[in-house]
């Protein structure tokens, strides 16, 4: 049976022009439908640039150096298999792949005053095969 090499990439960039007291969590998702084949994840990774800063504070207050990424593989009904970054080792094969959902997250913050600034970019990619 033919093997199809697939890729899914997602990037979020966020910049704020004023100081605020609350910065919401980042959640972004990308979805791709499959053909009920056997899926092997060959690589999954996440990277981050920038972060959250405090006004007149020298040290960045962002405590999430990489963000968090999950690949959810749905295999029918309520069944799913999750894969977490980083990994460049092929996963065990998973049968009956119907769809994949790449979830990208980064933390939100709250302060008692308008002192939070944000300039951050998160990117994630996954390479996988469907047979």
């Amino acid at each position, binding site marked *: 049976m033919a093997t199809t090499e*697939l*890729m*899914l*990439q*997602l*990037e*979020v*960039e*966020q*910049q*704020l*022009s*004023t100081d*605020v*007291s*609350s910065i*919401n969590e980042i*959640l*972004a*998702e*990308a*979805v*791709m*439908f499959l053909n009920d084949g056997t899926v092997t994840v060959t690589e999954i990774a996440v990277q981050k*640039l*920038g*972060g959250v*800063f405090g006004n007149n504070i020298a040290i960045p207050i962002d405590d999430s150096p990489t963000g968090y990424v999950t690949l959810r593989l749905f295999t029918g009904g309520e069944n799913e298999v999750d894969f977490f970054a980083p990994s460049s080792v092929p996963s065990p094969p998973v049968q009956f792949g119907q769809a994949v959902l790449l979830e990208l997250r980064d933390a939100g913050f*709250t302060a*008692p*005053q*308008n002192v939070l*600034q*944000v*300039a*951050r*970019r998160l990117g994630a990619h996954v390479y996988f095969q469907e047979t």
Partner: protein
Amino acid sequence: MLRETLRVFGSQTVSARRPIELELTTSNGKMPVSPVLVFRGEQQTVTFDGKEPAAFTRHRCKEIGCTDKEAEAVARGEIHHLPRDAPTRSSFASLARP
């Protein structure tokens, strides 16, 4: 003004979703805001809560107190505070552009 860019790459049928808040929280309380679509790829389809972006933006802007003229301008993507390629304020952290 909060500016966000969402990029997605994959097969031709790939789709992406980015939940956003319609309020910014400051020490003065919650400030209602509206999303504005400034740019999209030529082959991309973008919706706000399932609606065409200009229609959503026009309705939301009127809901939060913009004038009809302002709402129409913003619905056309005419924003002046953070154009797509503008740098952030110099006193702010900024991200290098690829």
